[in-house]
């Protein structure tokens, strides 16, 4: 169902995801575990085709993420850590909008919306505007939104972070429900209790690399620990490893602060420079035509257009530089 092969994602010199490979099957909850900043969210964003892979690839239900991105997005449903709804729309309207974006329409869509509302117990507030919803209610609508098109693969990125116990329970219940319906659920989390309770198999990612894969029992036996948390700590490393990691992070932050371009793609820098210089050339050309009063009145018009375009180009180039 999901097959990841040597997936790599670089931001400039920094490798966020380093030759990651794993496979997950339909009808299981697959855990993507790792400490904060290990590369879990980046991996999921690449799988969801929101970011482009630098190297390697993955297939989801037979669709390649590098060549068939719209089909991939049609196959998956993603619940991100940050749930946002359109406040001025009701829960039902929020669901309808996304249903339409996923190509559904008419009675079929309305039936599906009703089904999702029942599945997630949202009848009470389905036709109220989302602006005043509690976190738990919002969470339900967000889940509904990500499964409105009945995806075969459901990806959850830190779904319980920042939720209270009841809201978190809603999510956990739903994941189990989805597995029982024969879907593949990919769960990314750093919470080992959740992972132990829910996941059938897990992959542990550390500093962008896969360090262990297997069922929870397998990992426990391999490391000789009796909880997943202990096994995780054993695999990811002891205090010394944490210390090394902290140093690496500090270096990373320093680099990011002093040399933003070091994280930049060289192609981007080049093209933004070209745009900037082209802008400057246009302005100069316009000014020369203006000053020398070439071509009479038409010349003046041309020069103003050139100067206008040049300034726009220079600004656009500057934004392209600043962006990264």
């Amino acid at each position, binding site marked *: 169902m999901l097959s990841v092969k040597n997936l790599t994602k670089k931001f400039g010199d920094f490798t966020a995801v380093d030759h990651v490979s794993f496979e997950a099957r339909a009808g299981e909850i697959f855990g993507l575990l790792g400490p904060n900043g290990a590369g879990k969210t980046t991996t999921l964003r690449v799988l969801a085709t929101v970011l482009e892979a630098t190297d390697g690839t993955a297939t989801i239900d037979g669709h390649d993420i590098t060549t068939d991105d719209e089909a991939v997005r049609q196959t998956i449903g*993603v619940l991100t850590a940050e749930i946002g709804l359109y406040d001025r729309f009701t829960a039902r309207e929020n669901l309808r909008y*996304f249903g339409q*974006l996923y190509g559904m329409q008419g009675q079929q869509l309305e039936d599906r919306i009703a089904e999702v509302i029942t599945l997630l117990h949202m009848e009470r507030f389905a036709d109220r505007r989302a602006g005043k919803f509690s976190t738990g209610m919002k969470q339900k609508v967000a889940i509904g*939104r990500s499964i409105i098109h009945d995806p075969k693969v459901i990806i959850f990125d830190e779904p319980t972070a920042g939720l209270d116990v009841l809201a978190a329970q809603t999510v956990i219940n739903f994941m189990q429900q989805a597995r029982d319906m024969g879907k593949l659920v990919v769960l990314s989390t750093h919470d080992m209790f959740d992972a132990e309770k829910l996941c059938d198999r897990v992959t542990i990612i550390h500093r962008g690399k896969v360090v262990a894969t297997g069922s929870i029992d397998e990992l426990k036996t391999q490391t000789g620990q009796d909880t997943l948390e202990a096994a995780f700590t054993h695999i990811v490393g002891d205090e010394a490893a944490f210390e090394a990691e902290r140093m690496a992070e500090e270096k990373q932050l320093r680099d990011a602060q002093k040399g933003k371009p070091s994280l930049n793609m060289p192609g981007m820098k080049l093209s933004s420079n070209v745009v900037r210089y082209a802008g400057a050339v246009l302005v100069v050309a316009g000014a020369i035509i203006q000053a020398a009063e070439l071509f009479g009145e038409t010349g003046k018009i041309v020069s*103003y257009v050139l100067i206008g375009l040049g300034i726009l180009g220079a600004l*656009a180039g500057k934004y392209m530089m600043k962006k990264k």
Partner: protein
Amino acid sequence: MREIFIVWKKELIDNFRDRRTLMTALLMPVILMPVILIGTFKLQEYQVKQTEEKTAVIGIASLTEAPTLVDFLSQQPKIELKEIAPETYAQEIDNGTIGAYLAIPADFEMQLASDESPVVTVYSKSSNLDSATAGQKVQTTLAIFSQQIGTGRLMAQGIDPSIIQGVAITPEDISTAEERGGFFIGLLLPMFIVIFAIVGGMYVAIDVSAGEKERKTLEALLLAPLSRFRIVMGKYLAVTTMASMTIILSLVSMSIAFALYTPDLGMGTLTIDLSPAAIAIMLVIGIILAVMFSGLLLSVAIFAKSYKEAQNYISPFYILAVLPVGIANSLPSFKPSLAFFAVPGMNAVFVIKEVLLGTYDWTHIGITVATLVVFAGLGIVVASKIYSKVGILFRD
């Protein structure tokens, strides 16, 4: 196409439910245009009336002395005489009870009868507007009185009174309708159309870009299986629709206000051309302006993380669009050369101004439309390019 339509429809519904957008984009132009139109003319009318029609109160020492002059003055429609103690006139002028004081010599009637010229002094305060106006008015009236006396004396001696007129003077005002319409036609009305092209789309542009980031709905939207280009086009169309709606509403409400109320400046009716052709040209220019600014607004707003930040980025655009026009218009006898019609924003103001005054210069209109179309196209390209860059969308 279907997806573009879905996004467009959703953004419009969403923004129609937002009171803030409705206020700025729809209500403001409907109310503001007639207020500007009628308000400006009412103000000018009021000022003209103020000077012409206000009754001047003139203080004199006694209403019973110098009956020839007193009778003449009391027959004047806008002059009222008031008896005051001569030594208090300065105080009375300051209090505003009288506008000016007339000092008439005691032997006025005698001097008049013996063909002499009695000295009448008019006291007024030039630093006080009311007093200055009253002083002017009484002096003009006194001049007429003096002329009447003079004419009578000449006729008594059998001389034709017109002989003392060396030349006959006929004043003729050569200022154009444009110069008389002045501030209103020249600047305010066209400038507001340009401003509405920005304001109308502003809140929608912010809402669909930075707003989507602030509410954290952007990632969910990008996860939907449609291309970025379609998302941008849907949003772009929504912004343009809203801005165009603002412009259409402002033009409609302006036409209605103008039909119900024709301004009169007291120097012949001023003609503003609001024929269907003029409206059509303003509409076309307004809508292309809206398309152009929409691209600009969307491109800029997406760099912001929040509503507030986006507003900060966008406010300079007002100044950018309005300042050059303001400066150009404040220069006396400024006539835009052909080149000015290639400056987007500015050209719209000049063309709308011309059209309102009934001048249809097709070269100007052509250059303006062509330039605006080029920049509008550029706006669409830039906006869709920016939106297809992942980095900007995830800039935290």
